[in-house]
């Protein structure tokens, strides 16, 4: 195997297993192999996908952000309340993005300037955002606004299936994320920082600004995910996104990105998202399991997936 190909081996292995997974589900469940299911994979996982893209960038630097789920919740209820009070949706959206980005920038700045552990700082961010969300309102609030309705009703027709706003957004964000991570200096700098921050400094890379930007973008993407969640449901809910951060981290890591930083791929995140979604959809199609068996089976499927991924990679490494 050529080195270039070997570097892509994790991705190829993940993709291969995803195909097997999907094919198995399609074989088992009638109606699974359809464009709708594929579109739903994107639209139902849009919030997770958008958050995962930002999380990938942060994890590239060897950092982590636990606040994203709470930011989604905050933005969701913030947007709903502000629109209800009559502010124009565009303005509210911009404000939400600014809040998300601002929180990210603040956390990033603290983490970098004072060498604080990202885990704790973003945990504090999570508590702040969730507290803020409940402070705005402890109840979910419906939105009835022509713009919001138009957005949530919109579908880009593609033959037999239509791509709704949510799916379009996540696909767009994934594409942008891919370009940013793999075709810009910024993205490469992030990976370098995660590889070894000291080395990155010695190599003359702009470590501080890159790190802060990673958290800023991640915060803004979490806010965007919050907007998407609001459009998806046509309502704001302060408890949206509970536990989302863990799902996002799992998606990123399943995609082969190293949590310690320095190694990873945005396409892996896409694959991780699809694996996650496929497992859940397959279980919904099945519909026979009890609450607890669903958990157990999800866990075991994840385990199987990871062991297969490992096995394939080891095989590839041995037979080079």
């Amino acid at each position, binding site marked *: 195997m050529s080195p270039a190909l070997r570097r892509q081996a994790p991705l190829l292995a993940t993709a291969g297993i995803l195909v097997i997974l999907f094919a198995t589900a399609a074989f088992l469940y009638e109606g699974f192999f359809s464009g709708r299911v594929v579109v739903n994979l994107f639209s139902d996982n849009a919030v997770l996908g958008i958050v995962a893209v930002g999380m990938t960038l942060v994890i590239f630097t060897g950092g982590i952000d636990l606040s994203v789920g709470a930011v989604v919740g905050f933005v969701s209820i913030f947007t709903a309340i502000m629109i209800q009070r009559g502010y124009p949706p565009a303005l509210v959206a911009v404000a939400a993005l600014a809040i998300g980005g601002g929180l990210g920038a603040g956390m990033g700045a*603290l983490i970098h*300037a*004072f*060498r*604080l*552990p990202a*885990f*704790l*700082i973003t*945990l*504090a*961010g*999570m*508590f*702040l955002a*969730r*507290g*803020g969300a*409940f*402070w705005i309102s*402890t109840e979910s609030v419906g939105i009835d606004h022509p713009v919001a309705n138009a957005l949530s009703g919109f579908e880009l027709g593609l033959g037999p299936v239509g791509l709704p706003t949510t799916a379009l957004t996540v696909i767009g964000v994934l594409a942008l994320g891919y370009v940013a991570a793999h075709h810009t200096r910024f993205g490469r700098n992030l990976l370098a920082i995660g590889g070894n921050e000291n080395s990155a400094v010695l190599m003359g890379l702009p470590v501080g600004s890159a790190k802060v930007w990673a958290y800023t973008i991640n915060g803004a993407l979490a806010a965007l995910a919050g907007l998407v969640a609001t459009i998806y449901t046509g309502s704001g809910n302060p408890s949206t996104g509970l536990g989302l951060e*863990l799902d996002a*981290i*799992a998606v990123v*890591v*399943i995609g082969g990105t*190293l*949590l*310690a930083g320095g190694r990873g791929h945005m396409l892996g995140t896409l694959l991780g998202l699809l694996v996650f979604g496929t497992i859940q959809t397959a279980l919904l199609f099945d519909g026979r399991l*009890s*609450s*607890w*068996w*669903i*958990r*157990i089976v*999800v*866990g*075991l499927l*994840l*385990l199987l997936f*990871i*062991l297969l991924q*490992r096995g394939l990679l080891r095989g590839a490494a041995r037979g080079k």
Partner: protein
Amino acid sequence: MSKSKSLSPVWWPLIGLAVLVAVNLALNPAFLNVTVLDGRLYGLPIDILNQGARGLVLALGMTLVIATGGVDLSVGSVMAAAGALAAVLLAEGHGLAVALTAGLGVGLLAGAANGLLVARFGIQPIVATLILMVVGRGAAQLMTNGEVVVIKNDAFAFVGNGTVFGFPFAPLLAIALFVAAQLFLRRTASGLFIEAVGDNETAARFAGLGAARVKGLVYVICGLCAGLAGLMAAANIRAADSYRMGENMELDAIFAVVVGGTALTGGRFLLLGSFIGALLLQTLTTTMYNLGVPPAVAPVPKAVLILVVCLLQSEHARRWAVSLVKGGKK
């Protein structure tokens, strides 16, 4: 004076704890009052210790896992599974010994599974333990059929509620574990081995350490701690609530460890720091009940506390603050 010998990192969470207690005292002078009721010590500090005991036990195991550069997300679910199994066995009429052994056995098994995945298959700890986090909760619910199983065994309840000479048993147990662990880790080479693996695993392996074995073992210990914490939690409320027991406890445990001065990247660990960290967290929770902070915004003071302790701990932040003060005087 050697300025480089800076304050031990244990001091910062301790200062945080002192501040928190001071705030409480200012608002409620009776905060630290302890009385004797029915031959038991009774008062808020006792509650803090009693309710914090589980967190302490979890933090102990988590410290070792984090010291090797790993993390264990499954502890909350393992707690639930251990508590559930013990409760179900008791409900079926088995004795105390069976229930305790089974609960700890669940922890052991879970730890071994995590250790196997991390140390043997080289799977990233966060994913490896995430699997058990999901499966463990499911298994707990499966055991109890999704219901709350009530425990009527008084001997078992002692684990969570008993007193020894008036002093609550659970925190005594936790403290004893900490002391034993500290002695074992620092008197034998085990502490060094764990730190070596966390600091540079490859180098540790090259020096002849069974790095995989060390890593596997810390997960087993962490699993055992989680199992014990599960038993304590079930005993404390005399019931196993498979859905809610141990929920979010993994985050709390990690929080306690990191606030206590052990870096998530592994290497040097501070058992005493984790102890204080866990205590700090429980004090904060109780403080919030005590001050009547509305539940919806209760996370906010938590955030503030984290920030304060973090900033105190950071040498960079302290230096910056000093320069600000000096700059201000000019």
